[in-house]
């Protein structure tokens, strides 16, 4: 049993999964705070087009995902506040990206018999066959994303919770939102690579949403979300490597665990405390003045 855990395949999957989960846990918190869950879903589908396009060009799918999602983050940033929370617009972009992905995939799978399973690995993840080069790219993306988040943490939190007063206080809300979109793009590409286009949403949203159901304090929620993300990924990998049922696919074990964590946190959170966010708490965390006016 432990031979398996020291195997090369498991170690690579573990490293890649940890990088993706760490990014997802932290980015996800801001994502839920900014009510941009649907936008995140669109990023996954843009990654689908990127991955299939890159495969068509003979490149690693991860490169295509990163390129496409960064590009869309920049164009969304150019649209600015007009693009915030507009469900129908996001939906149209998402359906176009999916259509492109379906086109690329159909050309690619038809080009050679050995490509016929490309669809499954892109849609449902391919962490088990991760190449060293992709692993380095994921670790690099992860470090860049975490560094960027650490630098903008305080103003980003302020701008996400209360954009109006943040702007009034001279916080560059617009540039922050572009930075956040770029970080989101990296996290979405990494998660999509690990658990696939269809399941990445679980890794990105569920830990953060679960954490926010349990606590109102931003820093605590952020750390809890990070912990949930790592826990879900590690447990998911373990279940898939040594678990019952002839090794269920990793995408299934991770999304099922994510669903479970979210459901438990929602039930516990509902019973334990009032639902509304405490503004005094937020004040204290954002401005660091102990909650005094």
């Amino acid at each position: 049993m432990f031979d398996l855990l020291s195997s090369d395949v498991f170690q690579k999957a573990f490293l890649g999964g940890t990088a993706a989960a760490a990014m997802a846990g932290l980015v996800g918190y801001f994502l839920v705070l900014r009510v941009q869950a649907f936008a995140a879903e669109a990023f996954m589908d843009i990654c689908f087009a990127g991955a299939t396009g890159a495969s068509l060009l003979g490149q690693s799918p991860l490169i295509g995902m990163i390129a496409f999602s960064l590009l869309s983050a920049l164009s969304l940033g150019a649209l600015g506040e007009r693009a915030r929370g507009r469900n129908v617009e996001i939906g149209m972009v998402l359906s176009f990206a999916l259509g492109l992905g379906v086109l690329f995939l159909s050309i690619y799978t038809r080009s050679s018999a050995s490509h016929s399973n490309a669809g499954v690995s892109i849609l449902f993840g391919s962490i088990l066959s991760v190449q060293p080069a992709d692993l380095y790219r994921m670790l690099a993306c992860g470090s860049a994303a975490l560094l960027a988040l650490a630098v903008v943490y305080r103003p980003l939190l302020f701008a996400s919770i209360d954009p109006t007063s943040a702007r009034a206080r001279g916080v560059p809300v617009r540039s922050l939102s572009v930075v956040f979109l770029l970080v989101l793009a990296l996290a979405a590409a990494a998660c999509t690579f690990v658990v696939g286009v269809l399941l990445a949403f679980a890794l990105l949203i569920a830990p953060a949403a679960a954490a926010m159901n349990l606590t109102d304090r931003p820093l605590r929620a952020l750390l809890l979300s990070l912990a949930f993300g790592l826990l879900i990924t590690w447990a998911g990998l373990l279940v898939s490597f040594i678990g019952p049922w002839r090794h269920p696919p990793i995408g299934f074990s991770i999304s099922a665990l994510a669903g479970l964590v979210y459901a438990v946190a929602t039930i516990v959170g509902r019973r334990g405390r009032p639902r509304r966010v405490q503004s005094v708490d937020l004040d204290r965390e954002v401005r660091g003045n102990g909650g005094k006016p």
Partner: protein
Amino acid sequence: MLDVLRLPFIVHALLTGSFAAVVAAVSGYFLVSRGLTFAGHALPNIGFAGAAGAVLLGIEPVYGLFAFTLGAGVVVGFIGKDVRERDVSIGVVMTFALGLGLLFLALYSGYAARVYGILFGNILGISAKAVMVTAAASGIILAMIAFLYRPLLFSTFDPPAAEARGVPVKLLSVLFMALIAATVSLSIQVMGALLVFTLLVGPAATATRLVKSPVAAILVSVGLGLAYVWFGIFLAAASGRLPVSFFIATLSFLVYLPVRLISPVAREAA
């Protein structure tokens, strides 16, 4: 060129595509007006798990598909109005269902092409019997919407007032999601689970930007939906074997983009 129209599978594709386009355009109008775009994206994906499970059990995928979309639709109908909570819950349920679908797919050692047909659609492989079933189902859905039209419209645009006047808002919302589930199940053979969403939201989103009155918007939406499907099938047939769903998604995006940018109807997007 018109010889193509004599091929039975093209005729079946055009007929089924037209039924799906009309039903999806009509129910899509209410979906967009209710701000349920994300649910429209999630339901087909949840249905995929049902279809994969049905394939595993050896029954027709469409039954599993309908059962799962119906269940999910009813749950969405019951969930409250808070967008933040709703999108997150729908998303987590959706990914869980997709994970289940993946598990079923892994357990199913047989021919996976049927499952692919569900994800990507199989419009050129529709039997004469399936055309009849689609026609009957479309008729029932449209009749239901016509029957519920007034209260549905009222509760869509002004839920508090509708509630005050004794319209059963909650019941309508659940019934409506059941209709969406039926629409999704019947459109999936045309577009595949990944892109049913396009047929639901694309025409309706463009129509609500073009005209204001509900009846006009529904008619424009139906016209656009039919045009996308017909052109999509035609372009796919002309291009060889490129997927129909790609052309439909691209057409719907290319029409939506300029309309959105120079929209004559200034409407608060949901």
